[in-house]
């Protein structure tokens, strides 16, 4: 059933726009009714992100649809090129443009000669899959069409691929990765695909030594950059103390770089006491069980931290999107049997009822559905209550992320302890 009481799955077109919206100096033109663009613009607010690109709509009327007249789009491209002189214009088809068969690819090809900006088009119109498909398409297109051959290579630089605004904690997590790379390896961030980035940064991405890929949707982007510029890459995210240590070790091995052992020792030592505190707190409750939900990479990488370090009995893990395309790593055995990939609303209600969790770590909609669950912590989008995440020193990733999550969970347990089942 395609009927939803809460939110339907965001489409590929939405993902495309989310990934492009944060590229400074870029222009985006949507060929479709203006309301689509206006809605999308307001939709960015739930992500705690700013529109960095210049976004325009052409609007569209009956004549454009019936007569297939695309003059409006051509004139808008010419105008945006002349007014803003951008290095790149992304041209997006709306669902209507896609249905009536507007050949945006040909229009852009024909116009390219007279336009100063590079024209890159996305033609799906929202019918090719969920938002992850759109994000994948953007990351891939950027690697194919925008990254330039470097004039020089910078040895101590890396790029982050797949830090995008649809990740609930993208800004703080990006900052934490940056901090680990600096403190542990002495490496500096070169470019981010695509949160808070710019056309120039993406064009210069190939100057870096290697790529860190934070989501499976970035795998093709990384492969293309490897093929074009011989850049190695690593896919995975650092969550928890052990997980972050493992991530650092994998990084050192993959890129043949040396980690700062003193830094690592200090971080792990600090982590021990916090873990003891939460383990002790949870011991007071019988079967502190939970449900985890979010993107595939998030749940895959954070699951060991929650289950093996914090010792929460995560009984079910919900992936909030389909797993189309390459680059999604195989789940660990401990996780495999718990996974529910892209379940519908009714299925989620069944999961909530069967598991009867004490804690929910998930998106805002799941938290609404499980309003009766004692401990509810939002760790993923959608964010229907528009919770602010302005302060960017509250990561989920890395050593600091582990401490911050422990603190958050402890506070929530403390605040809701009367509703939890005591062991004694």
């Amino acid at each position, binding site marked *: *059933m*395609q*009927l*939803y*009481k*809460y*939110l*339907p*799955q*965001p*489409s590929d*077109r*939405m993902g495309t726009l989310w990934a492009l919206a944060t590229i400074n100096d870029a222009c985006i*033109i949507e060929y479709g*009714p*203006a*309301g*689509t*663009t*206006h*809605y*999308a*613009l*307001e*939709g960015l607010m*739930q992500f705690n992100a700013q529109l960095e690109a*210049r*976004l*325009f*709509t*052409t*609007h*569209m*009327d*009956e004549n*454009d*649809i019936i007569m297939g007249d695309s003059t*409006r789009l051509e*004139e*808008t491209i010419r*105008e*945006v090129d*002349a*007014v803003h002189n951008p290095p790149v214009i992304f041209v997006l088809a709306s*669902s*209507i443009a896609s*249905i*009536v068969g507007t050949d945006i690819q040909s229009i852009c090809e024909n116009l390219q000669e007279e336009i100063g900006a590079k024209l890159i088009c996305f033609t799906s119109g*929202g*019918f090719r899959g*969920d938002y992850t498909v759109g994000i994948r398409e953007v990351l891939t297109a950027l690697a194919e069409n925008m990254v330039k051959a470097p004039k020089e290579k910078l040895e101590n630089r890396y790029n982050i691929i797949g830090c995008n605004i649809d990740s609930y904690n993208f800004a703080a997590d990006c900052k934490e990765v940056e901090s680990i790379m600096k403190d542990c390896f002495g490496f500096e961030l070169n470019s981010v695909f695509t949160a808070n980035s710019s056309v120039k940064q993406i064009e210069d991405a190939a100057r870096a030594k290697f790529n860190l890929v934070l989501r499976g949707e970035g795998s093709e982007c990384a492969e293309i950059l490897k093929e074009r510029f011989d850049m190695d890459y690593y896919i995975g995210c650092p969550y928890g103390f052990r997980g972050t240590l493992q991530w650092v070790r994998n990084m050192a091995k993959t890129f043949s770089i040396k980690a700062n052992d003193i830094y690592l020792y200090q971080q792990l030592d600090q982590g021990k006491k916090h873990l003891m505190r939460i383990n002790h707190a949870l011991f007071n409750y019988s079967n502190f069980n939970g449900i985890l939900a979010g993107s595939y990479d998030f749940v895959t990488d954070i699951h060991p931290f929650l289950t093996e370090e914090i010792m929460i009995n995560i009984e079910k893990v919900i992936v909030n999107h389909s797993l189309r395309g390459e680059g999604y790593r195989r789940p660990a055995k401990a996780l495999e049997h718990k996974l529910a990939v892209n379940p519908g609303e009714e299925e989620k209600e069944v999961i909530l009822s069967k598991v009867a969790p004490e804690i929910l770590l998930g998106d805002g909609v799941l938290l*609404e559905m499980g309003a009766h669950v004692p401990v509810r912590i939002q760790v993923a989008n*959608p964010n*229907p*209550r*528009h919770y602010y995440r302005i302060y960017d020193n509250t990561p989920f990733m890395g050593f600091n992320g582990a401490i911050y999550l422990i603190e958050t969970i402890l506070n929530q347990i403390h605040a809701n302890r009367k509703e939890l089942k005591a062991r004694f």
Partner: protein
Amino acid sequence: MYSYSLDKLKRLTEVETGKDIKQLSNAQFPGTHCPLFGVALTAGYIKDLFTLVVGTDECTFYTKTFTMERANASGSSDNHFLSFAINQDDVVFGCHDKLEKAVLHINRKYRPKAILLVTTCVLEVIGEDFDALVYSLQDQIQAKLMVVRAEHFKCHNHIPGIERTLEAAAGLMEQQPVQAKTINILGHRYNGVEDTELLKLLLQKGVGINLVIPSSCSVDSLAAAPSAALNIVTDFSALPLAEQMKTKFDTDYVYFDKYLNLDRITAGYKAVAEKLGICLDKEILQLRKSAEDAVKKANNILYSKTFIYGNTPLLAFEISSFLCSLGMKPVLLQARDLYANDHVYIKEIMDMGHNPHVCRIANIAPLQQLYDVLQPNIYIGHENPVKLMEKGIVQVTMDGVAKKLGFEVPILVMQALADSVCAFETLAGKEHYHHAAL
């Protein structure tokens, strides 16, 4: 550098239809909202009404996000907004059967009293027959089914969505015995209508409020809407509903929008009083006197000030006409479209010797290039306050006036304008900017 030109626009004397209101540029930012947004703004007020939005993931996702956010802000529940997200197969093969199942499922699961089926752009392009859907289902279910079309390619903004949702409400009404000295307020989309000058006065005179549509009504109570002796239309978007009620139930109406012109407000009060058989002469005189005093005060400050009209909850040409009557000079007016009586207000502006450029709203970026050419003293509406300050332009927003009716509207508007101009002049040269907001 490419520059935008006012030559693309028509002047007020040349504006005869909505099509004469041109855009300054092909590329629009942020662009207008669509009728679906108008539906979301309106339907959520009607208690117990279930709304099923049928559209792409995008249309349904953002509408639901908006209604959830709105419900959270007001502490209510938005669980009555449901979505049917179409896929590629539905575009090719249609989705009549699936929609039938969905409606039957809603009927079974929620036992709703009424369901508003909302179509969107794609459904209208592929020609999905919602009337047939209602025809085939209505006898099988107890919920009253209604259809609202919300495609954006046939209009320029969200207003048709509001109009059509209000019109659909008429489908829930039933003929009733008329209660003397009772009224419905049509088109008021805010809480607290009883706090407005108009309603305070009517309540003092023993007039009873039957319904406020949409902001205080339910599926059940709408049935009794025709029991009111008079409809007072306080927003032009409710005029089609008022016309329908006039035709179907012979309910008379008075159009009493958020006017600023003192004669129009006086005429509105008098029409209401006459139709309800009450006398308001003394009160009208008293209230009008306060407004006239405010005009005298404001005149000294606002006379000869130039302005750009942007976007407020008021009628674009009506407020502009009023400001011209204060001696202000319009240099550019932004409008959504042409609505009821706009030709009257336009003529008033022209008769006062003004002929400003007119452009469509919700496209601020190209306009910013023209501030040096237009050199307005005041910008009325939402814009980037810092950009306006840099150009020495006073900004006045008027969101708060949306909840007012009667002489309190012009009094509040003049106060905001005068206060902003004075404050701006005081602060000029200092390192902070000022903008007034009602």
